[in-house]
């Protein structure tokens, strides 16, 4: 077998650079996502250091990255957490959806995008980054705070909304009519509910099958990944998007099976998700960023305010005081992985949209953690020393 030295070298240098950037981001308790994007921008066409040999790998890896991101998202889900969040925070979730999707949709319409562009941009501004925020709350020592359940509940309900939204987007992006889209939504909702029901009544059987003969790490990894990729491929074949298929597999697994799957998959997810962010950066040319910057800034500013209101409202329902409400509102600002997943699904053929979203996520993935830290400057709530966390 001929091993390409160029591929190994380029890949090695990319991963090393990513690790240095990631460490730098962690040092300041920021998300590494914007740095991965920037690196992709730097490496892309018109960038400073093109990587021709590693291109094919990055492209394939990015696809696997989306599948793994959504699989692990599904694994995070438990029916009880969803129902508790629903009961306490349905109103917060509705407010969050309306307030934050509207600016995106409006901006898309003003920019003259077509239906799928408008829908995609609405999703981009709506969905907070549960990855960034969950980690941030842990890092800042806020898990014990009164507003925290409100923040986490809103995130869970957003993630659930994504399960319905992504298939809809996939159909519209494929050029379907509104009637087809409606059918797709009903189908998607039905499938998600079916997955929930399956997971509730038969999830332990699937889990038992997966854990049959007490598989070690490697065995378990191969089983989960194999199953997920097959289902993802089937979903893609019926135009439901591989990512959604993977999410449903994640939903289906519960309890011990989910815990163990999460354990073996997390490092792999981290690797391929980094490649995915890199690939999005690669697909955007740095020159196209400058013209969209004013729009991105304005959109970021408006949606910082709307998230602030949603978080404020949700935290008030938990009985948190003014500071807590401010902390909750600012915590929700960060956008990240899922805004980019959306653009991966819809924006491949829309260069301007891709650039806008890349700029928007760059801004808010950095601003979110910074702003929410500023909201709490008394300096007594943080951990006395940095904690090693593995939560993404």
């Amino acid at each position: 077998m001929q091993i390409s030295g160029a591929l190994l070298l380029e890949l090695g240098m990319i991963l090393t650079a990513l690790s240095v950037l990631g460490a730098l981001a962690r040092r300041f308790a920021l998300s590494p996502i914007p740095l991965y994007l920037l690196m992709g921008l730097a490496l892309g066409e018109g960038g400073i250091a093109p990587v021709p040999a590693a291109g094919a790998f990055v492209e394939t890896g990015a696809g696997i990255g989306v599948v793994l991101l959504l699989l692990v998202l599904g694994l995070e889900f438990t029916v009880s957490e969803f129902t508790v969040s629903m009961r306490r925070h349905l109103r917060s979730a509705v407010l969050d959806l309306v307030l934050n999707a509207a600016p995106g949709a409006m901006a898309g319409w003003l920019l003259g995008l077509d239906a799928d562009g408008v829908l995609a941009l609405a999703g981009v501004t709506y969905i907070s980054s549960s990855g960034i925020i969950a980690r941030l709350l842990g890092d800042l020592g806020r898990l014990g705070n009164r507003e925290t359940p409100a923040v986490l509940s809103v995130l869970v309900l957003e993630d659930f909304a994504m399960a319905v939204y992504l298939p809809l987007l996939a159909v519209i992006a494929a050029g379907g009519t509104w009637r087809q889209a409606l059918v797709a939504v009903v189908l998607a909702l039905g499938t998600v509910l079916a997955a929930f029901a399956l997971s509730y009544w038969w999830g332990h059987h699937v889990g038992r099958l997966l854990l049959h003969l007490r598989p070690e790490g490697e065995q378990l990894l191969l089983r989960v990944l194999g199953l997920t990729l097959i289902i993802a491929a089937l979903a893609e074949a019926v135009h439901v998007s591989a990512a959604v298929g993977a999410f449903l597999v994640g939903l289906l697994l519960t309890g011990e099976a989910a815990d163990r799957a999460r354990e073996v998959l997390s490092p792999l997810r981290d690797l391929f998700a980094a490649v995915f962010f890199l690939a999005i950066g690669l697909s955007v040319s740095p020159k196209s960023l400058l013209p969209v910057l004013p729009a991105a800034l304005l959109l970021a500013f408006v949606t910082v305010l709307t998230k602030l209101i949603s978080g404020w409202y949700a935290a008030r329902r938990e009985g948190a005081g003014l500071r807590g409400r401010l902390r909750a509102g600012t915590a929700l600002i960060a956008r990240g992985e899922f805004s980019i997943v959306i653009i991966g699904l819809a924006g491949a053929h829309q260069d301007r949209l891709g650039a806008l979203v890349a700029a928007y996520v760059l801004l808010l993935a950095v601003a979110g953690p910074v702003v929410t830290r500023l909201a709490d400057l008394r300096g007594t709530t943080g951990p006395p020393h940095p904690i090693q966390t593995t939560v993404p």
Partner: protein
Amino acid sequence: MDVDEVLLPGVGLRYEFVNRQGDRIGVIARRSGRFDLMVYERMDLDTARFVLQLTNEEADTLAELLGAPRIAERFADLTKEVPGLSAGQVEVRAEGPFADRPLRETRARTRTGASIVAIVRGEEVIPSPGPEQVLRPQDVLVVIGTHDGIAAVEQIIRG
């Protein structure tokens, strides 16, 4: 004492209680198996001050240090809440068949369905003893199961 339980979606569970001195204490049991310990600000009950983080084993050790004398009592409380489940104590005697034998050889769970969840040895408590744990004379086994299951374990241990 009232312990409040709050669900933290995606993270785990938070338990809170107020001690006699009026400090509000929080424990977060993360899904990953780690624990965070926190204390609330007296002035602002919304804000928890992070105290320390414990791994699974560290938390076990701390629980053992703090709760050793009460462990059997707590099991008894627990079983009150689950109908059909009870807790019992079985003493290992020097002349019994399993004195100085590993727990595995009793095959208690396979034969009776009841579980030996702890061994009390003098002042020491061994929670969740493994199959290799050697039983000593005068050990008291804390057994959880059905009434009949516990009786059956007692018969096995007594010989």
